[in-house]
Every structure is written in structure tokens, then in C-alpha cells.
């Protein structure tokens, strides 16, 4: 699996990303992995209420796209958005707190795991109804274009999302208005339980549709953080330069079930094992070895990540439940919910 690039647009040229970026990509992937695993443990302890969707196995995409962003760039995620939220620098405590629906959560328990949002970090929301946020991301990019701002809007979604109408409307819209938005399809081969190949007219649900919007076909290895980073940088530069949107399909796999409720029984035997061979962290450790990153530097990242997870966990466990005073707050901008006088 290598980048299927359009030379003229220079996607994912093969240059080395450099040592600093390498360590940063590893740190992000390790921290996401550790935090997601902890989220899973917390389910098992019944401390995560409601539903939850992990990105175990898809960390390279979150890391690569986030690492290439500047602080003013905007992210729009799905319910499977813990990874993207963490990758923008949102503290683990805030994410796990929201999963546990506690007062210390990102939205103090009002939104829940499917709606992680941190305006401060320009994580402009996680959206739980398929498709909508592709259109909403267009609006953010339109604002940047209108105001002459240079930020890029990045919108993450799954393979299954390419079959809903909003996908089509958003892509066409972004192209005709030349919006600075980057659409990232994380193709993990499944919608909830149904293989994407059984319900899609083309083999590559995003890449094979790019020509319908006059866009180049971009299909990359989503488990290789370097490839992701390079692709992201190219797409962001294009968008910032007024070159309009990109649609990028990243091949990946989720190691766990769709959501908390899903044991993943629909997978053909051997499939998971095959993909575990291509685990982004495994790939990345090999990459670091290749580039001679010191074991100490790697260990430091891993130790720090574990520490953060432990610290976040204890803060969350100690945190009070959602505050009852918030039940009717912030329906309207005046802070309240009054629909009458």
C-alpha cells in the first residue's frame, strides 16, 4: 500500500519528515493508544456509561493529520473522535472525564463520548449522525475564505459515510467554492458490522469517487504515520494557497468492535491478525529503529504516556458526577433555556 498520488499536486512526496516530527508522531500515537485502552478498561469496570467508539488501530491517521496542523486549524470529527481530540492536545482527563460523564469532562457530561468538542483547541465538535459534519466543515472553511484567514478545516469520517447524501453535497460544494477544507476518509473496511465492500459501488469508497468532484484520487496507507503526515502537509498547503479541497482515503483497520456493544464477530477469521501485523505502532517502532531513534527517547515517551493516563484516570475517578445545575443551562446564548416569558 503506497500513496497513489497526483504528481502535479505533489501529494505525499517521499522526503524524510525529520526527527522532531518523528518523536511527535510517536508520542501522539502512543498516548492515543494508551488512553483508548484505558477507556476500554473503564468500560469493563462500568465507569464509562452510554456508548463509546475506540480508534485502536487507527492512531496513525489522527496523529499524522494533527501533527501537520497549526493551532488555528479546525478539526471536525465523528463519534469515533477520541483520538482526534487527544491529538489536538486536549488533556486526557477531559476526554476520559467526558466518557465517564463526570463534571470534569470536556463538556462536563452534557455531550458524552460521541460529541467531544474543545473550542479552545479548535476541535469544533464530534458528530454522531452520519454525514452532517462534512457540510458543517464546509461552513468553517467558507468563513476562513471569506475572512481571508489562513486556517484549514480538516474533516474526518469513515468509509460508510461516503454512501450518504451529505457526503456528496459537501464534496461538490467544497470544490465549486474552492474551500480550504480537507476531507479525510478513514477506511477501516466496515460500517458498524457490515463490510463496506458489500454496500458500495466502487472498491474505494472515497478515492474512487474523487473524480466525480474533479479531484485527484488520493489513497494512502493510513497505518503509516509518516505517509499520513506528508499527505496532510501537502493538502493543507494546497488549501492555504487557495487551491481548494482535498479528499484523502486512508486505509486502516479498527482493532476493537464498532462500539462498546460490539464484539466484532462478523470479521472473517485471520483478518484481525493480518491487520495486527500492520499495527501503526508496530510500523512506527520499526520506522524509528530504521532512523536510529534512541531507545531512551522512545522509553521516555512511553513512560510519560502511562503517567498521563494514570493521572487522568485518578482525576476522573475522583471527579464528581455532572452538575445538576447544568441540566437546563446553555440551551440559548443567554445561558438558559427559557422558551417563554
Amino acid at each position, binding site marked *: 500500500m503506497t500513496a497513489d498520488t497526483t504528481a502535479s499536486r505533489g501529494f505525499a512526496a517521499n522526503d524524510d519528515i525529520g526527527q522532531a516530527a518523528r518523536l511527535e508522531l510517536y508520542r501522539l500515537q502512543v498516548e492515543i493508544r494508551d488512553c483508548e485502552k484505558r477507556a476500554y478498561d473503564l468500560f469493563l469496570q462500568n465507569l464509562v*456509561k*452510554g*456508548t463509546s467508539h475506540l480508534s485502536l488501530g487507527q492512531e496513525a491517521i489522527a496523529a499524522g493529520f494533527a501533527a501537520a496542523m497549526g493551532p488555528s486549524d479546525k478539526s471536525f470529527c465523528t463519534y469515533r473522535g477520541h483520538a482526534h481530540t487527544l491529538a489536538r492536545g486536549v488533556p486526557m482527563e477531559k476526554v476520559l472525564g467526558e466518557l465517564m*460523564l*463526570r463534571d470534569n469532562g470536556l463538556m462536563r*457530561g*452534557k*455531550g*458524552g*463520548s*460521541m*460529541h467531544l468538542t474543545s473550542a479552545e483547541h479548535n476541535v469544533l465538535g464530534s458528530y*454522531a*449522525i*452520519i*454525514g*452532517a459534519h462534512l457540510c458543517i466543515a464546509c461552513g468553517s472553511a467558507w468563513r476562513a475564505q471569506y475572512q481571508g484567514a489562513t486556517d484549514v478545516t480538516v474533516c474526518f469520517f469513515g468509509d*460508510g*459515510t461516503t*454512501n*450518504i*447524501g*451529505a457526503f456528496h453535497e459537501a464534496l461538490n460544494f467544497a470544490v465549486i467554492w474552492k474551500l480550504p477544507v480537507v476531507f479525510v476518509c478513514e477506511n477501516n473496511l466496515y*460500517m*458498524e*458490522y*457490515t463490510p463496506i465492500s*458489500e*454496500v*458500495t459501488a466502487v472498491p474505494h469508497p472515497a478515492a474512487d469517487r474523487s473524480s466525480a468532484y474533479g479531484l485527484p484520487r488520493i489513497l494512502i496507507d493510513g497505518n503509516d504515520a509518516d505517509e499520513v503526515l506528508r499527505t496532510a502537509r501537502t493538502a493543507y498547503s494546497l488549501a492555504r494557497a487557495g487551491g481548494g479541497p482535498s479528499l484523502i482515503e486512508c486505509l486502516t483497520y479498527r482493532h476493537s468492535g464498532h462500539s462498546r*456493544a460490539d464484539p466484532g464477530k*462478523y470479521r472473517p477469521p485471520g483478518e484481525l491478525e493480518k491487520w495486527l501485523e500492520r499495527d501503526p505502532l508496530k510500523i512506527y517502532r520499526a520506522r524509528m529503529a530504521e532512523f536510529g531513534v534512541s531507545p531512551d527517547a522512545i522509553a521516555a515517551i512511553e513512560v510519560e504516556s502511562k503517567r498521563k493516563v494514570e493521572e487522568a484516570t485518578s482525576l476522573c475517578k475522583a471527579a464528581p*458526577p*455532572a452538575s*445538576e445545575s*447544568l*441540566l*437546563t443551562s446553555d*440551551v440559548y446564548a443567554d445561558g438558559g*433555556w427559557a*422558551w417563554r416569558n
Partner: protein
Amino acid sequence: MAELSYRDAVIRGISQEMRRDKDVVLIGEDIGKAGGVFKATVGLYEEFGPLRVRDTPISEQAILGAAMGAAMTGLKPIAELMFAEFAAVCFDFIANEIPKQRYMTNGQLGCPLVIRFGNGGGVRFGAQHSQSIENWCMMIPGLKIVAPSSPVDIIGLMAAAVRSPDPVMFFEHKALYATKGEVPDGEIVDVLGKAKIVRPGKDCTIVALAMMVHRALGAADILARDHGIDAEVVDVRSLVPLDTQCILGSVVKTGRLFTVEENPRLCGWGAEIVSIVADEVFWDLDGPIVRITTPHIPLPAADNLEDMALPSVARIVERVSKVMNGSRA
């Protein structure tokens, strides 16, 4: 007679009808091989095969459009929309296409189909996966709407829905799937448009739907025990057709009406019932009509907040007892 879960009742209700009529077909996301996100179609793919139980892409407009076109031309589709509020991504079919087809064509074409919704809250899924949206449909002329509260009603009303020549919106309550109830053996067929007095009483009428029926019943017990108030509880079951005879009869008898609605307040079905009562049996009323609803807010995800938001047994007891005492004073 056997004990069956509400979830298994959905399966039994659908399979009863699929065995009877081979034009009954099922479509939706993950409903086939995976047995449905709510596990309410488990085994149907195995029994009826891939031609009658079809997994779809995430394309709710195509799902409802396909159901409509198939219904217009001879099939009896049952479409699952998974979480009820996904209705919003295909609302054109629910609001503008399906319900108006028969009228606009002067009776030439109808849409005999069933749309299943996983409705309601209490499962900590937050603002976009917990809504009670039966009112989104009740507003629209041309639809029929049921929302069963028990396994036996699920089976009987599913049969009535599938056999109906009109489009029926079938609201299953997510928080009830795991609940159980006694169900007779053999074929069960109910009728659309009949409410049920699930607890007779003489002091006031409490009208409720789906999960709220159970809470109203719980409240009625406490009202009787602790407050000396003998409440009659009506399970509406069918919003359209609406059994106004049953409701008006009960109100005439008790003189007092309360509605218990899981929906956010504004324009809920309870308001419609109040407006019928306040017009048609006004002179039989002994005091104010009071609606107990979820406040008019999006639903919070946090368990403690969600519990505060939805009408609880305690809130019903408190409200009914206060109002009833007030009116006597």
C-alpha cells in the same frame, strides 16, 4: 403463554408476518447478518434469507425511498431507521412523500409500509441518540403512528402495521428492549387506533405512551398508597388513529387529565390531547389539565442529568398529588 422480551417480541412480530406473506421484506442498516444494532432482528436473515432481509449502505434516503417505491408497486416493506432521530436525514420521505402519495394521486397509489424507529431515552446516548420523535410524525397528515409499551402489544401492533394498507410509523422504545412480559402462544393480531386502560381509577386520568406507561403505573401505585389518589392510567398505544373515545371517556369519568410525555414539551402529543379535551369535554373538567414532560431542552448524556430530564415516577407523583390537592382546596 410465555415470557418474552420486548426485543424478542419485535423479532416474533416480524417473523409472524413474514411467514404469512412473502411480500413482506425487511431493509435497513446492519439488520441482516448482524441481527440489528438493537438485536431486534436476530435470526430473521437466517430464516428468511438475503433476498427478504437486506442490509443496506448508510443511505437512509435510499432506504425509505426504496421502501416507498416497493410499497407503491406491491411489496410490504418494513424499513428500520435504527436511532429514531435518523428520521431527520430522510425526513422528506416521512413528511413530504410517503404520507401524501395517496392524497395527491387521488387514491391511485398508496404506500403500505412500516418504518421502525429505536425511539426514546434513558440509555445515556446523549442529545442525538435519545430523542422521542413520535411527534415529528404525528404532525404530518397521512401517517399512522404506534408506540407499544409491552411485548404483547409489539407483536399485535406489528401485525396490524404490516397488514395496514397505510404507512405506519412503528416506535420501539430503546429502554424497553430488555423488559419482559407475558405473551400468548400463536398468532397475535391487534388493531391500530385502540388505547388501553391499563389501570382503572376514578380520581384522575393519566395518559402515557411507551416507556412512560410504566412510569405512570408506578406513580399510580404510589399515588394510591401515599396520597389517596386513585388514578386511571391510559396507554395511548396509537397516536394516529387516536382513540379519543377512550381518552374522553376516561376524562369525563375522572374529571381530571394529566399527560406524561417523554418528548420535549412544545407541540407534544399531549398538547394535542389537551386541546381535544379542553374543547370537547370542557364542562366535565374539575380542574386544570397538566402536562408532565421532559423539559424543552436537548437531552444531556450524563446519567444523573438524563434521569432528571425524563419524567420520573417521583416527578409524576409529585406533580399529580400537588395539582390534585390544589384543585380540591
